[in-house]
C-alpha cells in the first residue's frame, strides 16, 4: 500500500501533528516504506485465528466500586502549562 500526499496529510491531521506542506511528500514516502515492510504479514494464513487481546491469560481483578483517592486538585494542576482558578485553561473552544 503506497501512501500519497493526501493520505499523509489526513493521517497527520488525525494524529493532531502539524506537518508543513513541504514535508508531506517525504512523510508519505517514509510511511509507504514502513507499510511496505508490514505487507509481509499478508503471507501468513490467519484463518480461524482469534486476534490476541491479552498476552497472559488472566482475569481482570475486581474491587469494590468506592472512591480510593481524590481531593488533590492542587497536585493534579501542578504541572499544567496554564491553570487558573482550579481549572486547566485552554484556548476558547465554543464561540
Amino acid at each position, binding site marked *: 500500500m503506497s501512501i500519497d500526499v493526501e493520505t499523509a496529510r489526513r493521517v497527520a491531521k488525525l494524529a493532531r*501533528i502539524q506537518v508543513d506542506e513541504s514535508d508531506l511528500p517525504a512523510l508519505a514516502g517514509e*510511511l509507504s516504506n*514502513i507499510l511496505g*515492510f508490514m505487507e509481509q504479514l499478508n503471507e*501468513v494464513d490467519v484463518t480461524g*485465528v482469534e486476534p490476541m487481546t491479552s498476552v*497472559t491469560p488472566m482475569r481482570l481483578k475486581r474491587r469494590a466500586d468506592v472512591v480510593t483517592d481524590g481531593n488533590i486538585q492542587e*497536585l493534579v494542576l501542578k*504541572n499544567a502549562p496554564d491553570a487558573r482558578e482550579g481549572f486547566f485553561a485552554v484556548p476558547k*473552544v465554543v464561540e
Partner: protein
Amino acid sequence: MTNANELTLADARDALRKGDLSATDLTMACLTAMDAGDALGAYVHKTPEMALDQARAADARLKAGGAPDLCGIPLGIKDLFCTKGVPSQAASNILKGFRPEYESTVTTKLFDAGAVMLGKLNMDEFAMGSSNESSCYGPAVNPWRVDDRELSPGGSSGGSASAVAADLCIAATGTDTGGSIRQPAAFCGIVGIKPTYGRVSRWGIIAYASSLDQAGPMTKSVRDAAILLGAMSGHDPKDSTSADLAVPDFEAALTGDIRGKKIGIPREYRLPGLRPEIEALWQKGADMLRDAGAEVVDISLPHAKYALPAYYVIAPAEASSNLARYDGVRYGHRAKLGAGDGITEMYEKTRAEGFGAEVQRRIMIGTYVLSAGFYDAYYNRARKVRALIKRDFEQAFAAGVDAILAPTTPSPAFGLGEMQSANPVEMYLNDVFTVTLNLAGLPGVSVPMGLDREGLPLGLQLIGRPWEEGDLLNHAYVLERAAGFVEKPRKWW
C-alpha cells in the same frame, strides 16, 4: 582495592552487611564516578542531595540490622520512570519541566527497600529507538570503543547500559518493549533481563506500547539481575495487568545445575547473512550449555520472521493511543499560539514541537493502521499473527524445552550517526531477535559472552517459560560462568 562504584550489587550488599563499607561512602564513590562520566551522556538529571539523604537513612537501617538486599545500593533510574519531584521526561521535549507528583510502583518498591537514586538515565524518546539517538538530551555514548568513533550504547535503555558498564552506578532500571533492555545490555557488555509480562508493575512508567512494555534490571552480573528483579517484582493493584503471583527467590535459583535441561535452538533465527562471528558465538553458547549437562535440540518457531512486522503494527498502534495524552493541557510543553489559533492548532503545534521525528513517525503509523478501513487489514491481522507467534513458543515448551538460546543482536555496537542515513526499517532490524518474546510475553535475558575481533562486547539471549525467571537466570548463570567475561571498557571519559 577496587573503587566502591566498581562493585557488583551482590558484593556491595555483602560489604554493607559486614560493615566494610557504608552506604554513604558507596554513594559518594558513585556520585564521583557519575560526575566524571559526563562525556558518556548517561545521566540526564542528577539527584546527589537525594542520594546522600537516602544513603544516610540506609546506613541507619543497616546498623539496626535486618535491612533488605537493596538497602544502601546506589542505582540509576531510566528517565521513563516517574519519580516524585524529579524531572521525568521520557527523553522528550513534550514533557519538558514535568515533575511528577507521584512515584512509580517500581521506584517506590526500590526506595522502600532502601535503594539510593543517583539520577535519571538517558534513553530514546518515549523508549522508541535502538540507538539512544532519538533522545531530546542527545545520545548516551557506549563506554566501549575501538578507535576514535563514539559508539551507540544501543536503545532504548542506552543510558542505563552505559552507566552500568562504566560503573557510574551499581545497577540500573530499564524497560523493554521490543528489546530495549537486552540490546543495550549486549552492546555494553552487561546483563539485562526482561521479565514475563505482568511480573513488574507498569504503574508510573510512562507508557509506550502497554501490551508489550515491561521493566527489568540492568546489571553487572546474573546474580545482580536476580537480586534487583526480586526487588522490582510483585503484584500491584494499580496495574491491572500485573500478575497476582508470589515472587520467588530468584537468587536462590542460581544453583549452576542445568543437568537434564533441554535447550532449544530455533532454526528460523539462522537468518541468511547472519554474521559468521555471531553464528560462532551462538554455537559456542550451545556447547557451553551442553557441557554443563543440558541437551541441545533444534526447534522451529515458524512465525518468527513475522515478529518484526507484527511488532511495528502493534507497538505504533498502542503508542498512537497512549501518546494522545500529550496535548499541552495537563503537563509538559505547550506551543506559543498565534492570533486566532484555537484548541486544534494548540494540539497540532504543541505535538509538532514536542515530539521528535521518530515518535511522530510511529504515532502516524499507528494512527494509520487503526484508522477506518485499515484496522482489519493491519491491526487485527497483526494481532492474529501475534497469537501464532505465541503459539510457536507454547508448542516448543510443551515439547519439553526449558530455555531457548539465540543471539541478542545481529551485530555489535554501531557508531553514533552511522544509522542516521539508514531508512527506519533498517534500524528496526536491530530488534529482529528480541521482539518475538515481547509479543509472546516471555522472559528473556542477555548475557555478555566475550569480545568480537575488534574488541566490542557480544551477548547471547536466553528465552524462558512464562513466570520461570528463576530457572531462566540459572541458565544465564551457567553461561556467564562458562564465558568468564570479565573485561571492562578502557576508561577514556
